[in-house]
């Protein structure tokens, strides 16, 4: 048995979290799996290895997907933290309202909201893109979807951020976020059908519980997962869309000339900058990866962004190219735990890209600020200093 090579890198170092790509490249060139003693973690770095691991839940269990025992304990019984066959039932319940077929009716509304918001911003001359677009848009869509308003809507951003943050190791960010994630958990445990707008998907989940279609007491858990998973990630993606089109005006021009490129452009945004930095698995047995042995019980960290830039899989991987159409990128994961909300994420992001391509001729960006965050990689601030409306 050959042990994996080691690296002294701390994958949750502030500098790495803000700009992980040089670290990803170094780890990926070192080996397909690298042990990080500082994090007691085996990271997977290459495309094929990551995809194979995601497709093999029997060997790579999700029961410890988080990087501290408290969060793994809290997630027990959710589809996120379970393996087949239990996972199959939980996943079906979770995804029933999120499949593309279930969401088809929302497309027109989402497109209209994106167009209105982007048209206003494009006409304003300059705007701060994180608060006014990357956060504002998904928060409104998710609030409408679940059917809440008032104080819940006001707390959604910090709750959603905290829910992702606590998946990290027990560092200061995680410790500070647990009480906030607890507020979200508390609300989801006490929310009732009457709290949610009639006709909303959130209300529908409670109706399904009343009918006995899903087990008693699960409606709140499902809503918890929608809010925990669907807010911070989409915010990251939309910020990345604005930043990448700001940095690469010729790529925006390509989409403006050919709107059929909208889905390909979003796939490339996700490939180029993965919204989720790292996600956990546990080895259920001694497993050989890339010629070395990872021991049973080891904690693994999947580096989606490292796999997405693997030159063994993508040509010129460090180039942002909206014509590439990398439909097999890893940012939604893959296999039984592949992102359940990807249909909704695509609806939202495609609506934003389509609106930008129609409403914006060019935009110049400045003050791109990212704060270190354990799991999600998003902008804290992004100034569009000059936007020229189309």
């Amino acid at each position, binding site marked *: 048995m050959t042990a994996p090579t080691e690296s002294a890198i701390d994958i949750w170092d502030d500098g790495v979290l803000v700009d992980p790509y040089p670290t990803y490249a170094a780890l990926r060139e070192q080996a397909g799996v690298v042990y990080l003693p500082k994090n007691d973690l085996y990271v997977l770095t290459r495309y094929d290895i990551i995809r194979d691991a995601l497709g093999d839940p029997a060997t790579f269990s999700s029961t410890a997907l988080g990087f501290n025992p408290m969060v793994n304990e809290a997630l027990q019984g959710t589809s996120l933290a379970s393996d087949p066959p239990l996972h199959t039932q939980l996943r079906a319940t979770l995804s029933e309202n999120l499949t593309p077929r279930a969401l*088809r009716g929302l497309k027109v509304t989402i497109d209209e909201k994106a167009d209105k918001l982007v048209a206003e911003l494009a006409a304003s001359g300059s705007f701060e893109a994180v608060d006014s677009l990357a956060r504002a848009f998904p928060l409104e869509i998710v609030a409408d979807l679940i059917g809440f308003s008032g104080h819940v809507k006001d707390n959604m951003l910090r709750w959603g951020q905290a829910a992702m943050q606590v998946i990290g190791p027990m560092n200061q960010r995680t410790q500070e976020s647990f009480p906030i994630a607890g507020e979200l958990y508390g609300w989801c445990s006490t929310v009732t059908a009457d709290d949610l707008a009639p006709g909303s998907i959130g209300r529908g989940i409670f109706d399904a519980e009343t009918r006995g279609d899903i087990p008693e007491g699960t409606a709140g858990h499902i809503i918890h997962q929608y809010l925990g998973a669907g807010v911070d990630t989409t915010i990251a993606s939309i910020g990345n869309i604005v930043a990448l089109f700001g940095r690469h005006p010729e790529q925006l021009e390509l989409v403006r000339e050919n709107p059929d490129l909208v889905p390909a452009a979003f796939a490339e945004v996700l490939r180029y900058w993965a919204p989720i930095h790292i996600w956990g698995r546990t080895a259920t047995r001694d497993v050989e990866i890339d010629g070395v042995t990872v021991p049973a019980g080891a904690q693994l960290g999947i580096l989606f962004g490292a796999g997405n830039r693997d030159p063994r899989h993508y040509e010129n991987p460090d180039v942002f190219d909206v014509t590439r159409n990398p439909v097999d990128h890893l940012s939604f994961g893959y296999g039984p735990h592949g992102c359940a909300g990807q249909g909704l994420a695509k609806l939202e992001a495609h609506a934003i890209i389509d609106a930008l391509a129609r409403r914006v001729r060019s935009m110049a960006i400045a003050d791109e600020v990212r704060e270190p965050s354990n799991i999600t990689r998003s902008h804290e601030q992004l100034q569009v200093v000059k936007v020229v409306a189309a």
Partner: protein
Amino acid sequence: MRIELDRPRCEGHGLCEEAAPKLMHLDDDGELVIDTPEVDGADLDTAKAAVRVCPVAALRLAGQ
């Protein structure tokens, strides 16, 4: 080779249809229909592409 669908796992993301429109399609209810389950030659490559892009690994190719 035969294209096999794990029906409960399929969520109708539709990437397979984009990769292999002659072999499969989503019907009006968003349910996947495999129009040509038995594939060989050029169709086999297209089928492999469809299997590959399924984000939830609901498709596979089974041997003779």
